[in-house]
């Protein structure tokens, strides 16, 4: 019998079985069927040489399951298209894992770098947002030019005894009152 005659693509299921593969104990490649007390082999989880070796050594007297494509060929684990897909998926998973790791490292490095690079030490997001919501105007007074604009009451030289008449916003820390 020549190579063409023994092609895996020519195998046929003599007696199709209704047993449920999912309930059989075992792995992707072989499982044990409790109904027939026999091992069932999954050719699609094997490479083509492995599957051919298994089928032809047993002279076809074994239980197998496989997926046959529309063109009549049997799908095996070393299918080039499938392998390409698996490798692409593996590359994507590797990239994601490395990317996450690098992102953690990078953000830590960025935090320490920005602390030196920015005029102020880089604080957490809440600090940046609080500063934006309630800016503290530390700008030096303009001198040598005529200025115009709204003028709030100047701060007192000696701060009065703090009497809380209006509650502070929830995001701010209240100063301790005398006697507290």
């Amino acid at each position, binding site marked *: 019998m020549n190579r063409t005659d023994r092609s895996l693509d020519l195998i046929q299921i003599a007696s199709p079985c209704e047993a449920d593969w999912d309930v059989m104990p075992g792995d992707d490649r072989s499982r044990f069927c409790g109904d027939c007390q026999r091992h069932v082999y999954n050719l699609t989880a094997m490479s083509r040489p492995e599957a051919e070796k298994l089928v032809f050594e047993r002279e076809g007297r074994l239980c197998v399951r496989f997926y046959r494509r529309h063109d009549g060929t049997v799908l095996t684990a070393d299918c080039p298209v499938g392998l390409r897909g698996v490798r692409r998926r593996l590359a994507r998973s590797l990239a994601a894992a490395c990317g996450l790791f690098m992102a953690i490292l990078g953000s830590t490095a960025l*935090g320490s770098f920005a602390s030196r*690079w920015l005029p102020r030490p880089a604080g957490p997001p809440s600090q940046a947002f609080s500063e*934006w919501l*309630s800016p503290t*105007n530390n700008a030096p007074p303009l001198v040598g030019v005529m200025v115009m604009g709204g003028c709030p009451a100047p701060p007192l030289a000696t701060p009065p005894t703090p009497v809380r008449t*209006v509650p502070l916003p929830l995001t701010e820390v209240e100063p301790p009152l005398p006697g507290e």
Partner: protein
Amino acid sequence: MDQHRLSRRLDWAVGAGVAMLHAIGVATWFRDSNAWLALALRDSVPIVWLVLIPTWAVLGTGRVWLRWPAAMGLLAVWGAIYSGEFFGGGLPFVPPILFTIVIVALVCSAVTRVSGLQLRGASPDDLSLTPQFSIRSILIATALVAVTIAALKWLEPRLAYDPLGDRYGIARDLAIRSENLLTGGTVEVMRGVFPRNNRELFLAVAMASVALGGLWSVLRPGPVWLRLTTLALAIPILAAYMSAAGRMDSTERFGQTGELAMALASYAALAAVTALPLRLFDYRLMRAAAAVQIAKRGIYVVDKVTSTEKPSQPIAETSP
């Protein structure tokens, strides 16, 4: 080890890493840290959760009657952790900001859902999609950019710091009213919308937008790099605008822009990273029509490599 199995394990490892980041964020809320990353996670996690929960309720997979009660439960858990009632601490921001974040997330998700997009398991053909030029997309993007620029221009004077009346506003009015009610006080409430309120609402919209941008970048089909680059460019521009619009003086504008950009970027990054496991497990934000179209071409929506089971009936017959 089998390559397929190895990639699956890596996917699960990424998922575990993301869960760990969230756990660090929650833990840092109760126990302070000096590390910038931990502090960024501490501040980002509650806000990203507020965006993720409504977005998942609207766009997620599974049954609606199960999703919405679960989302309510998750919001209750959020409240239990961050309200300070049970574990101490306090809210991350004043309630109007938090409500606005939830509303923005709900509205954006609803608009996305109405446009036909939903989180779905993608087929191998969906995964190999490449960006395509579309006149409609260009028109929509141009219109959105124009509307955004006009809105930002209109908002600019309304966000500026006002030293005379800046600190009064809706949240503060509510606080004064509550205290008057409890203590019998008669502190007068100033009515009206003040720059601080505008800034609070704008900040909420900005935080929700960048987080949604992170989700969008990761979950849409096709390569993420173009979308992530756009997001990475948009965030510093937004930060520069906020810094320019919000402050009186320009002496610290550069530093504030950097701080705001880093803060907003941390929100976007955490949202994107949180969605990453979904992408790895082949979930995408896409229309159902794509899956039906593929099925009609004779390709089954199954993993070609591992599945040997031919579907009992083609997807085209089961899909509406």
